[in-house]
């Protein structure tokens, strides 16, 4: 366990966000993960991102499947609604919830087993459907809760704690998402909050499916020498392609003086993502070059991170479904039932 339960007292000097809430208001139950687990850092980044965005806690729904990663939805935003569903099937539950109530912010948390093995089909089709949600994939290359089996994201040659080497090719969620037409694809590292927090904020604000693959080392089963998802390996091999700064609509935009090329992507609600390419000639709005960059990094045994691709013009699930702007759950029954007169008329068709 990483922490002890803290009393819910507010210090008078605590900073508050636009809703008057402190960072503590966005915390959840005490984590039961192992001390030093990367997932707890992701949780902390989510708390930070949600607080900075001033998300109304009760208007957010935390969605997950099964596994260490999926447990973390209990560890942030205790005032939000949560749904810990079945293994690998969180995307369909979220699709249904989002279809019914488009007015909420959906934050999905999954892992590499939940997303890339048992849930690969559901992840793929949620991307195709372009469900409006943040999808955080806490990726550690290993099955933690069942004590150390390889997951589908384990690299070839990466060794288990017992020394056995993985021989099967990994599934890279970033390449997968780019191939399937995802409109927001990012990768980060649980140990890099400076990079992760703005990506999470942008992913929440993005209209459509935002995949954030977070390398999140498993200290108990995959943080040893020989692992390619350890803290040490990730720190050493991470290459940030694009740094994203998230600028919400409400705030004045001030850009620090810099000679770097900035690319501004406007989000549907008017907020902006300002992308600073650190790799030469990198264009995060071009799917092909994003794909090529990730592949090139892979061949050099580097891990491409940053906001790798964003397309703010894609149609989301509700665009495809042509649904009314009012959430379906808020439509009065009178607008749904055709009534007696319509029934009488309809019956004539069956004579």
């Amino acid at each position, binding site marked *: 366990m990483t922490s002890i339960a803290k009393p819910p007292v507010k210090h008078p000097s605590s900073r508050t966000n636009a809703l008057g809430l402190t960072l503590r208001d966005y915390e959840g139950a005490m984590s039961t993960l192992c001390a030093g687990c990367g997932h707890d850092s992701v949780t902390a980044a989510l708390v930070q991102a949600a607080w900075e965005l001033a998300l*109304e*806690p*009760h*208007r957010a*729904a935390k969605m997950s499947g*099964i596994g260490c990663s999926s447990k973390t*939805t*209990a560890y942030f935003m*205790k*005032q*939000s*609604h*949560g*749904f*810990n*569903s*079945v293994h690998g*099937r969180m*995307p*369909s*539950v*979220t*699709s*249904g*919830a*989002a*279809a*019914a*109530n488009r*007015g*909420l912010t959906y934050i999905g948390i999954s892992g590499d087993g939940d997303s890339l093995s048992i849930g690969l*089909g*559901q992840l*793929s*089709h949620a991307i195709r*459907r372009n469900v409006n949600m943040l999808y955080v994939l806490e990726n550690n290359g290993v099955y933690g809760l069942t004590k150390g089996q390889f997951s589908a994201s384990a690299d070839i040659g990466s060794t288990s704690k017992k020394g056995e080497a993985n021989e099967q090719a990994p599934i890279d969620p970033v390449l997968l998402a780019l191939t399937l037409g995802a409109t927001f694809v990012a990768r980060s590292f649980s140990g890099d909050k400076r990079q992760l927090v703005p990506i999470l904020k942008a992913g929440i604000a993005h209209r459509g499916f935002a995949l954030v693959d977070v390398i999140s080392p498993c200290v108990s089963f995959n943080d040893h020498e020989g692992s390619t998802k350890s803290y040490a390996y990730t720190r050493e091999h991470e290459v940030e392609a694009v740094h994203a700064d998230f600028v919400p609509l409400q705030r004045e935009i001030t850009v620090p003086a810099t000679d770097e090329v900035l690319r501004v992507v406007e989000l549907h609600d008017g907020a902006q993502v300002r992308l600073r390419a650190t790799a030469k000639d990198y264009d995060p709005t071009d799917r092909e070059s994003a794909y090529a960059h990730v592949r090139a990094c892979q061949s050099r045994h580097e891990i491409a991170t940053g906001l790798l691709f964003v397309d703010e013009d894609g149609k989301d699930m*509700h665009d495809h*479904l*042509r*649904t*009314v*702007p009012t959430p*379906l*759950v808020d*439509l009065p*029954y009178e*607008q*749904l*039932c*055709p*009534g*007696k007169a*319509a*029934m009488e008329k*309809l*019956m004539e068709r*069956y*004579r």
Partner: protein
Amino acid sequence: MSGINDFAFKMGTVNGTGSASANALLMQAIFRMGIPVTGKNIFPSNIQGLPTWYLIRVSKDGYTARPSAVDLVVALNPSTYAKDVATVRPGGFLVYDSTWPLDPDLVRDGITILGIPFGRLCVEHFEGDRDRTLLRNIVYAGSLAALLDIDMQVVERMLTEKFGKKPKLLAANHLAIKLGYDYAKAHFQCPLPFHLRSMDATRGHILIDGNAAAALGAVYAGATVGAWYPITPATALMEQFKGFCERFRVDKDTGLHRFAIIQAEDELAAAGIVIGAGWAGARAFTNTSGPGISLMQEFIGLAYYTDIPAVFIDVQRCGPATGMPTRTQQADLLSLAYASHGDTKHLLLFPSDPRECFEMTVQAFDLAERFQTPVFVASDLDIGMNDWMVERFDWDDAYRPDRGKVLDAAALAKVQRFSRYLDVDGDGIAARTLPGVGGKGAYFVRGSGHDKHAAYTEDSEAYQEVVDRLKRKFAHAADHVPAPVIEHQPGAEVALVTLGGCDAAVREAADQLRAEGIHTDYMRIRGFPFNADVARFLARHEHTFVIEQNRDAQLRSLFAMELGVLRDQMIPILDYGGMPLTAKAVVDGVKTHLAGVPA
């Protein structure tokens, strides 16, 4: 049978050749003559080239079950000649295409063989292979109109309704009907001894299939989210839902939809979408068949254990495995009743015809929300895909959905603490909140062990408290699912017990048995869990027959398991070959058993 307005006939054709519209024309014409009629489409799991039959039964007494013999067969599929000719009753008629010489397979003593050159008539009057193939069906419809004395004014009116805007098609169809009609009139003694005579017995009725009816129920219940994966014989249900929604739920100004239909990647996802939407507060449903139910098991258990409303419409087909996808059965009863691992029990509704498909689909949504649990409507292929004559659907504008116990922000303000799974009223139903509500309303849904406050637990007592509440809730539902239909005859010692679409055949069998001096009481199960009337009925008869369409007597097993009725006290009559039940199968089953009982 075999008299005025009391006979059956069958067309044997090759699928994909367009016979469906001719068969529908015949059936609808008879219906519009005011004569009770039913049609059974016996079709292959195939798009083109395999045998298909359409069976039409005319019954002035209103019997709708599949007949066990037919009076006339139109044999147009050489690959099934031998089989088709064998189904004609002695003294019956066979119609074949005399463009070609009479096939030896079609020759049989004791029947009358009528040759009509359908193919030659089409070649002489129509151009192109496609038109000739399609219109051959309309030509045979014309011949049957003459042989059976169908009111030609009705037929002409129907053709005009159907093709009024397409003059070329209308002319071709008119000609095809006339060719067949005139040929039969000129060459045979028309009408045949059994034929039609206009009645007034279909007023206030419609012809509709159960899938369309269930879809309409979902629309009227206010369902907004439909998720599905295509599967025979359930596919048309969601397509019909879409059609109705496009008619009734599209905003006139913006063209935007007040519904969401998601064709999922598989049945697992379809179930997940329904559960996600149900949790969010929408009325959501999926339509599927046995293989889909197998795939949805895990999610069904999740919804059960976390108290989430969800409606599943299972249009049953022949299992196991892929089975016979285009044949009917009632073999999902046990897998629905106890779907998913662990201790689970579910609410089931058993419609007997399309009208009940409509009514019970509406009820299913009310029950799902009131009891916060998965509810299954167990239809089947025969009900779902065939046109049945039923009373017109009616609608009461005073109806409002039963949303069950839902706490909104105002209600939450009045409670000290919101505990999601706390049984305040003693009925096993705990109040829920919907995501989006503020204050104390947020909670964490989890399929893992939880206590009455929805918090994670591995504590035996806290766990048991929740599953015991679910058991209480289930028991409480027995008086809320549709009650059985029970009918008594004075002095009856024989009981006939059935469910679903067997109703028509069992009622007809009861009439036949009574004519032979065997009086029967009748019970048709309409819901699960069973209420107290079911146990009482089963206990009071000397001979209780349980009639169902599966091999393993699944309804009988449910009686034994849930009510403690001894298996030996219930005599199974099982019909599971995939065809709709006949009255004969029931009568034979009862008489065979009674003959073996020592007096």
